[in-house]
């Protein structure tokens, strides 16, 4: 012990543990054991993903509250319009699955939607519903639909995205086909993911997976995955290619209901992410694929984006990922090894 230590010492009879004892204790016990770097890295990635999701969610809630407080007149107008459009007497045909910034606060997650009801989104709102048939239908901003029945929806304006697999692989539709009615004709899905958008007088259909058929007075048309079809107001048809992942589908990700991962395998989670984002799942090795089927997950990814969910879940399984073209590649986490 040096001079400065002695100078710092308080009166011995007033302290239970002297400076000498502190020094002795520390020398005796040695430094605190360090946490292995790979464990720190894994947990940091997972916790950071949750933190970012939390901060993003909080920011949205604050925005919503501000809008509600400052624009009360607008909010009431939207609420009245929404309520009038609701058809309380109809049989339940759908339920609200997810909402993004619903300014009117007239819909709640889990709420039943009677058949015959109109659902509207504003310029900042998106909405996801699950039809009683099991289909997931997502509404983009500035969209209005009428829920006609458990398997039919009329698109009145804006855009919808339909996923016949839904966000939950355990709740797939039981073989029923969904119909989206538009001014240009009725669109029937054939086991698929697709978007229908009304653009002025035209109706555009984009198919991400599977195929859809369109029935119209001028004759039926079929649209396959990776293709789009636009029917003009004059009945003319134009078709072209569309990527099955990336920017054209970005809005769909924003309102995607997150999977309840508790008790599910990692493989189920990855299959779900791949399908939602239009990516083909690929493992860097057979061993990884086998592990993914064996690992059971615990926790929640509610409120996260797909990227945040991947960043949160995979490191805990000692895996990482990268997007390579249309592939979601799962690989071992760099430097992953068992340590204690």
């Amino acid at each position, binding site marked *: 012990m040096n001079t400065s230590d002695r100078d710092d010492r308080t009166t011995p009879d007033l302290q239970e543990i002297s400076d000498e004892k502190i020094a002795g204790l*520390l020398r005796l016990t040695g430094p605190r054991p360090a946490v292995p770097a790979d464990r720190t890295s894994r947990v940091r990635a997972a*916790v950071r993903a949750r933190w970012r999701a939390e901060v993003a969610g909080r920011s949205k809630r604050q925005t919503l509250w501000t809008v509600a407080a400052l624009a009360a007149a607008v909010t009431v107008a939207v609420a009245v319009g929404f309520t009038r459009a609701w058809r309380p007497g109809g049989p339940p045909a759908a339920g609200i699955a997810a909402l993004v910034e619903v300014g009117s606060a007239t819909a709640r997650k889990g709420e039943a939607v009677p058949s015959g009801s109109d659902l509207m989104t504003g310029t900042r709102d998106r909405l996801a519903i699950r039809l009683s048939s099991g289909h997931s239908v997502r509404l983009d901003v500035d969209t209005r639909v009428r829920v006609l029945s458990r398997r039919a929806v009329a698109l009145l304006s804006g855009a919808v995205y339909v996923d016949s697999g839904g966000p939950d692989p355990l709740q797939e539709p039981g073989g029923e086909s969904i119909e989206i009615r538009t001014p240009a004709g009725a669109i029937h899905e054939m086991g698929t993911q697709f978007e229908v958008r009304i653009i002025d007088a035209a109706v555009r259909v984009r198919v991400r997976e599977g195929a859809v058929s369109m029935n119209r007075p001028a004759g039926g048309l079929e649209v396959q995955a990776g293709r789009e079809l636009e029917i003009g107001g004059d009945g003319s048809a134009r078709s072209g290619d569309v990527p099955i992942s990336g920017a054209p589908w970005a809005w769909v990700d924003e309102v995607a209901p997150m999977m309840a991962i508790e008790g599910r395998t990692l493989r189920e989670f990855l299959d779900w992410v791949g399908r939602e984002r239009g990516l083909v799942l690929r493992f860097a090795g057979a061993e990884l694929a086998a592990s993914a089927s064996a690992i059971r997950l615990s926790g929640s990814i509610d409120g996260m984006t797909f990227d945040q969910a991947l960043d949160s879940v995979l490191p805990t399984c000692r895996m990482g990922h990268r997007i390579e073209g249309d592939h979601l590649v799962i690989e071992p986490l760099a430097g992953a090894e068992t340590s204690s």
Partner: protein
Amino acid sequence: MHDRDLDLARRMLAGDEEAFNEFFDRSFPALYRFAMARMNQDADGAEEVAQATLVKAISRIGTFRGEASLLTWLCTICRREMSRFYERAGRGRPTTELIEEVPEIRAALESLSALAGDDPGAALRRKEIMRLVHMTLDRLPDRYADALEWKYIEGLPVRSIAARLALTPKAAESLLTRAREAFRDGFAALNAV
């Protein structure tokens, strides 16, 4: 009130990346060691529990009021997460007797003088004391804990500690004084549990 911790929580809520890093770097190693000590040194289990604790804490960080320290608050959550961990695994929690959780702590602490010497028969108690000392260090501000370790374990002179902390030697001496006082208070608080 733990104003520094409260400020950290507020900055995290505001999305401050630096605050997140400070929160994680301060909390995770301490929680991991806390869990390891209570889970029979099960490293995978401790990692899972520490992660679950931090994730839960982040979802509730807005409710942190600073009445207890952040680490005390986290340790409360961690105990619940350990129980959940063993429930999920379908097995009982190990009955690890921790010195800070049993009435005999006073007796053990009274023998500190002997433990600090060369008594070879006190290995078990020495291990328990070691955990208590490490826990006390974990609960100190990082600079305090680091300064104490550098000074008394690595044997660094004050001027080297000052250089590591980007302080003048006088300021480093002052910091060491405060660090010893904080250690003494923290150790006594655990002793009183």
